[in-house]
């Protein structure tokens, strides 16, 4: 395996820097500047994997993003990367690569037995075979998944960082080949803001391989100079190792830049990948073209390689992919490969050209170099085990439809193939321009743009240098002009090269009947052959989209970049129609796979995945040991365990302390909206179900908001601060929605109302001081308010002072206790809280969290919108009809309250539940039935919405929505649990504590 296929000189590699790496556990070495693929080829390794379905040996086929075979699992453990394309993986020290889909090993693959039965595993085989008997599918699936998997996804958390960035520019150029560089140069010289992104480490694209001259210097020198000039421009940004993977609406493109993948693991710092979200006024697509392979029997044998890839390995990486090459082509470009091979000292057995003649300058140069050219011929089959050892050549009819004559066996260890070129129209197609088939060039060209974009160079089907440069300069100038810059850069000069027409050849005619001969592959990653497409057509799948799905053509990680066009050609031929009529499948993002980490970026973990909103007293809660719970995006104190208390123990203590003396709750998260204007009361009359016109200034009132369907949407207490000024509370989770809801009504339905709404949720910090001693605590802290029961009644609102700080105190209760809510600007929130704590110390003031708040309110039967309601519950269902005005002619949702469904007597209605065993707490969400022994399906009577142990009552309490529940007081219901336990409970009203309400009014 240590054969040396490295050329003695040349290439863009750094021979000073030897790079050691591992492949399938064996050690190899290459040079800096190699890809994993070029380094393996330099070591004589072609065969790198097994195919997906038949486990056939597969070798390196290409040198770029289109590679279907050379896909690897990189590294192990947390750094592992599945399905990396070895043709694009830059070699780094100690790279650890292994083949995917080989079991137990690459050379000895048990699953290759599938290959022997290939004829019995045609397209649709899995669908047809393993669906019966149905009960066995799970077992089959397990086996198939194991046998046909590609790379393995990591099992450990990804240790790398990923980042996002937004960018804007006048011109975005995708592709840093000579066309892209020229377009960027034109716009850049004009002063435009230009971004140029290219997927490779080095700019220059395929021309890096070339011996051509641009502006009188070598292409590589021109590239170097141009990149340097662009880099010096202040408004130009060049991104290398950056793949534009999506083209979206409004010239919005997504680009994934790989920042550290080329470095040894130990040198990787900072972010691994950065996803750029780029909005460009103009886009130039210079994405190049990909060479197509030819389709013939056993065309998948290692040692078969795209002709342009052979040139790339020879010229760019100084690697000989073989010692004796046969070149098989239907067009001119592979003749350059012949010259490249000759220059590298590779013996050229023969050039097999499907065309009856070839007489272009390039072809003649090849002939005069003494290289034999067989015109009107085709390679019909290959031989060799895990590597090509010879090919069979026959005469090909001028129309390409049949082969004849004797079979010539030609020995070789490399077969370079070219079936012409496919412009990389992926991004153009994604942008909305439907690719158009061109018969003369035998390729899909970019369609008419629907966004401000244009394709140039090979991406536009222009394969010669001179015209590419010309197009690119024009496009760069035009883009700059469209953005207001004066630009008329002349195209860099280059020599024109005439070429002869291609002979489209989608499949080399087989000497066997369809499906009988050796397999000829169209999609190598998914093992789709010519016979599979023909079978699909015979079975009635004529739409290219259906054929794709039936055969799985183009479904691999390579998304059919190499095989799809050949497949469409085969389908067109089979159906006797043109390729234009056959059409393409849809090109969708992502152009190449993007790691999940890159998509998530920094938005990970408890702190950054979603905003965490904190109140002004958050630090105090942390310092005092609070456990937190998420309420919407807020972090609210849940409970404050002392000395290792459990949740239940802490909550029982907090409940009792509050009811017996005084507790304090951070209520800052409630939504707060100021409603101001002459029509404020009139507006609230429509928003709420009850009356607001006559509410006195300095008084508060509780109200329900309904949706247009009459269902409870939100609730809260609103205070009249002045005649035309209300201060509204919403639920914590409902704040933003309620504001938007009210703005909608004001702006669209009642623009004549003089009302302004302003959110002040963040401005106020609120402490609820709750319990029989709350009056003593707040009156010790707040000056200027007469707290006497007669002068500061339940639902009154007063303004006072804490020191010199103005505060608003509302006597509101969500616990049934005497309670005050103290509000100050949030910058003073912690100050107020500490003042209250200090004043409350002599009463053992006890901070409590949301859990105790829930228990206290449930003991009084106070509902929580969103817990005891679910969007299908009316005010009447809650037993709170008193909140529905009988006198108002209208309010939002009123009309829906008279729908037959809302009037049903058997609606689910809110009731209380008391369990037979006082210690048993029914799980929230439990279903209730009348007869747990009834035959299945047991009729459901309702469900439990809130359920707690009440230390104050000495037994568990629950609220439930039960069908017709308001008329079922005293009846028994059962909650059957998943563990077969059945809890028996009695229906009660929802008021479990201090039924007369004496405490709140104390």
């Amino acid at each position, binding site marked *: 395996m240590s054969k040396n296929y490295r050329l003695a000189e040349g290439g863009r590699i750094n021979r000073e820097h030897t790079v050691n790496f591992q492949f399938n556990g064996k050690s190899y070495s290459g040079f800096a500047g190699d890809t994993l693929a070029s380094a393996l080829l330099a070591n004589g390794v072609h065969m790198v994997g097994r195919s997906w379905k038949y486990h056939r040996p597969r070798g390196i086929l290409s040198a770029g993003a289109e590679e279907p075979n050379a896909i690897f699992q990189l590294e192990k453990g947390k750094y592992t990367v599945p399905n990396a394309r070895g043709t694009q993986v830059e070699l780094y020290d100690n790279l650890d690569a292994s083949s995917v889909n080989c079991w137990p090993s690459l050379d000895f693959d048990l699953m290759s037995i599938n290959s022997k039965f290939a004829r019995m595993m045609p397209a649709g085989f899995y669908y047809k075979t393993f669906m019966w008997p149905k009960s066995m599918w799970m077992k089959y699936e397990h086996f198939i998944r194991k046998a046909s998997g590609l790379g393995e996804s990591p099992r450990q958390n990804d240790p790398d*960082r990923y*980042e*996002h*960035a*937004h*960018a*804007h520019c006048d011109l975005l150029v995708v592709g840093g080949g000579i066309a892209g560089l020229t377009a960027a140069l034109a716009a850049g010289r004009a002063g435009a*803001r230009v971004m140029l992104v290219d997927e490779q480490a080095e700019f220059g694209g395929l021309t890096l391989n070339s011996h051509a001259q641009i502006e009188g210097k070598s292409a590589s020198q021109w590239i170097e100079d141009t990149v340097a000039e662009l880099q010096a421009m202040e408004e130009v940004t060049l991104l290398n190792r950056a793949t534009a993977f999506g083209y979206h609406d409004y010239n919005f493109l997504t680009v994934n830049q790989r920042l550290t993948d080329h470095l040894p693991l130990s040198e990787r*710092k*900072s*972010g691994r990948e950065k996803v750029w*979200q780029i*909005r460009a006024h103009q886009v130039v697509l210079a994405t190049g073209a990909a060479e197509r392979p030819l389709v013939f029997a056993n065309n998948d044998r290692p040692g078969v390689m795209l002709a342009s890839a052979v040139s790339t390995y020879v010229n760019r990486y100084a690697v000989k992919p073989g010692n004796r090459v046969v070149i098989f082509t239907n067009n001119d470009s592979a003749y350059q490969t012949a010259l490249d091979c000759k220059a590298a000292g590779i013996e050229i057995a023969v050039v097999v050209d499907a065309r009856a003649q070839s007489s272009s300058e390039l072809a003649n140069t090849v002939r005069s170099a003494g290289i034999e050219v067989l015109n009107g011929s085709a390679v019909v089959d290959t031989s060799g085990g895990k590597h090509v050892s010879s090919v069979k050549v026959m005469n090909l009819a001028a129309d390409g439809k049949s082969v004849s004559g004797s079979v010539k066996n030609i020995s070789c260890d490399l077969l370079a193939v070219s079936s012409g070129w496919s412009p990389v129209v992926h991004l153009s197609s994604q942008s909305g321009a439907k690719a158009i088939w061109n018969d003369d060039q035998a390729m899909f060209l970019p369609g008419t743009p629907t966004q401000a974009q244009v394709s140039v160079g090979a991406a536009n089907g222009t394969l010669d240098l001179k015209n590419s440069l010309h197009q690119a300069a024009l496009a760069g100038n035009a883009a700059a002009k469209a953005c207001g810059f004066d630009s008329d850069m002349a195209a860099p000069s280059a020599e024109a090269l005439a070429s002869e027409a291609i002979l489209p050849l989608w499949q080399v005619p087989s000497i066997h009947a369809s499906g009988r001969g050796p397999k000829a592959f169209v999609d190598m990653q998914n093992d789709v052959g010519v016979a599979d497409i023909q079978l699909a057509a015979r079975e009635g799948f004529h739409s290219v989209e259906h054929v794709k799905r039936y055969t799985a053509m183009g479904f691999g990680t390579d998304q059919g970049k190499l095989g799809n066009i050949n497949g469409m050609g085969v389908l067109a031929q089979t159906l006797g129609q043109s390729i234009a009529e056959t059409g393409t499948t849809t090109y969708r993002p992502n152009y190449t796979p993007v790691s999940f980490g890159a998509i998530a*970026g*920094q*938005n990970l973990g408890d*702190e*950054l995945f*979603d*905003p*965490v*909103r*904190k*109140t*002004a007293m*958050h*630090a105090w809660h942390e310092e005092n040991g609070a456990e937190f719970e998420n309420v919407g995006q*807020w972090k609210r104190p849940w409970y404050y365990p002392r000395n290792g208390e459990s949740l239940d123990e802490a909550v029982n203590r907090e409940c009792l302390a509050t009811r017996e003396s005084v507790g304090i709750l951070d209520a800052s998260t409630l939504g707060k909206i*100021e409603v*101001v*204007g*002459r029509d404020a009361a009139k507006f609230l009359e429509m928003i709420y179900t009850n009356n607001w016109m006559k509410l006195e200034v300095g008084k508060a009132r509780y109200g329900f908001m309904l949706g247009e369907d009459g269902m409870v949407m939100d609730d809260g207490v609103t205070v009249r601060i002045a005649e035309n000024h209300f201060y509204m509370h919403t639920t914590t989770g409902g704040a933003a929605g309620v504001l938007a809801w009210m703005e909608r009504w004001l702006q669209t339905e009642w623009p004549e109302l*003089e009302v*302004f709404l*302003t959110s*002040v*949720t*963040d*401005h*106020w*910090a609120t402490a609820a001081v709750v319990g029989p001693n709350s009056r003593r605590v707040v009156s010790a802290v707040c000056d200027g308010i007469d707290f006497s029961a007669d002068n500061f009644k339940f639902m009154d609102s007063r303004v006072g002072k804490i*020191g*010199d*700080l*103005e505060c608003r105190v509302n006597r509101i209760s969500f616990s049934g206790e005497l309670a005050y809510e103290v509000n100050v*600007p*949030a*910058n*003073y*929130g*912690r*100050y107020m809280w500490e003042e209250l704590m200090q004043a409350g110390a002599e009463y053992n003031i006890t901070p409590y969290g949301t859990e105790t708040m829930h228990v206290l309110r449930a003991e009084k039967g106070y509902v929580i919108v969103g817990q005891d309601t679910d969007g299908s519950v009316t005010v009447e269902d809650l037993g709170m009809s008193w909140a529905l005005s009988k006198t108002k002619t209208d309010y939002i949702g009123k009309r829906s309250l008279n729908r037959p469904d809302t009037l049903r007597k058997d609606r689910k209605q809110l009731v209380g539940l008391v369990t037979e065993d006082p210690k048993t707490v029914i799980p929230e969400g439990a279903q209730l039935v009348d007869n747990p022994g009834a035959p299945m399906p047991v009729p459901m009577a309702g469900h439990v919405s809130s359920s707690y142990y009440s230390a104050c009552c000495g037994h568990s309490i629950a609220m439930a929505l039960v069908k017709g529940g308001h008329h079922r007081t005293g009846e028994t219901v059962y909650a059957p649990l998943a563990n077969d336990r059945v809890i028996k409970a009695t229906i009660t009203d929802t008021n479990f504590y201090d039924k007369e309400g004496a405490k709140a009014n104390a």
Partner: protein
Amino acid sequence: MPDLFQQHSPLVQIDFGELQDNAPTIEETPFLGYLNLRGKTSNMAFVAAVLKVLGVEPPTTANTMVESGDYRIYWLGPDEWLVITPTGQAGKVQSELNAELKDVFSSIVDNSSGLTLLKITGENATKLLNRDCPLDLHPWVFKPGQCAQTRFAKAGMTIAPLRDGSGFEIIIRRSFADYIGLWMQDACVEFE
């Protein structure tokens, strides 16, 4: 006036002091006064009252801000502005506006504790903000005198370029400030 030393910034748990060497400078200017002003510019009485108290008419060009003495007025919408005052002056300005606008359809709401202001300056200021602010912050496009309501990561912000070109000021909500602070600290790892 209350004891200003009793205030706590929403960023009390965030330290921007020890960021990476090449990170932009992030500094909070806490405790400014913020008034949310609503009114109709078609009503001359409203415009005149604002001019009288603030010394300048409310800007009517979308996404612009004006300065007048110690006050800055940001356009937030066709009938909504944010008035920024020096520390401790919001109450006084609110009273003056209320007095002048007594009979005019308007609303002046104190939101001083609801917002805070960060200045992000230095070479990489734009880079940091564009890590997850989708707007074009290039000086050709976003100039002093302009402002915009946008987002940073998943939280809203109002942003304006600083007059001297050194960076930006952003105004963020109190309850989201800690999240934004943590996000920025995390983003600054890039600037090692």
